[in-house]
């Protein structure tokens, strides 16, 4: 998770807090809301396991960004990803140039996986 995403999560949490809690500052309300969030998380995970299509909607699908020396431009542009982002992930793996990469995949958790050329080919 990037620092920006980290801040965003707390920011959205803060914004929704007032509307969800309102004037009710009781422990009963706090427990109920925590249990409701935990139950919703469990239900969501169960439904993802039960129905493949539901999992696709919630988590999305991995997307190939680079395939054997060719950018998937439609995927790149619609996912708002630049070649610099792929290279940043490549450098993280110790790779220096694009020709050292066989595949770059945008994973469901928004991270970019790099398959080096020696392993992919």
């Amino acid at each position, binding site marked *: 998770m990037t620092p920006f995403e980290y801040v965003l999560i707390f920011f959205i949490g803060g914004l929704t807090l007032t509307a969800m809690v309102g*004037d009710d500052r009781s422990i009963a309300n706090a427990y109920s809301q925590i249990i409701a969030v935990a139950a919703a998380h469990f239900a969501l995970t169960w439904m993802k396991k039960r129905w493949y299509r539901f999992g696709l909607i919630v988590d*999305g*699908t991995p*997307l190939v960004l680079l395939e*054997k020396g060719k950018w998937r431009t439609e995927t790149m542009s619609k996912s708002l990803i630049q070649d610099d982002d792929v290279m940043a992930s490549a450098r993280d793996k110790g790779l220096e140039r694009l020709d050292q990469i066989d*595949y770059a*995949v945008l994973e469901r958790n928004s991270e970019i996986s790099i398959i080096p050329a020696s392993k*992919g080919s």
Partner: protein
Amino acid sequence: MPSLRTSPVEDSVPRINNEIAVGEDLEFQRRWWRFENILWIFLVAILALDVTGLLGRGYLAKGTAQTKDGAMVVKYERIERFKTPSILTIQFGPSALQNGKLILWTSDSLVKDLGAQRVIPQPEASVIGEGGLRYVFDATPGPSSVQFALEPGKIGLHHLTLRVPGSEDLKLDVAVLP
């Protein structure tokens, strides 16, 4: 000790170029991008409604109403938000003043639905009856106004009626959004 259930590994994740198992579903993703485009239109529409005030607290939410004889001019918010403070201002014309008193009758929706918290200035008397509240203020000739601090506690469309003796009823509709 009972053994754990196991099952053989199946190579079920679709591969790219028969090499890496990614499980990419481009057909789904293209439908999702189309859905995202529609969703953006919807989100931008909500933002536009909010900026213009159609979701409350903006230019289009503000309303003004007055009696034909000018006894009352009311500035209020046609679109209110649940539990959000606002001010309803009533300016009185010369014909509203009678024997040094201003008498204002309001329907009980002012308190029950629109959550009137305070009246500024404090009335000399407030009396319940006729399905509402009657406020009596001491007043001298000249421009005068009364403010009600509202904090609506009921969601929905509410009807508010205001009256000063000798003038017509002023009927206002106020929508309270969640």
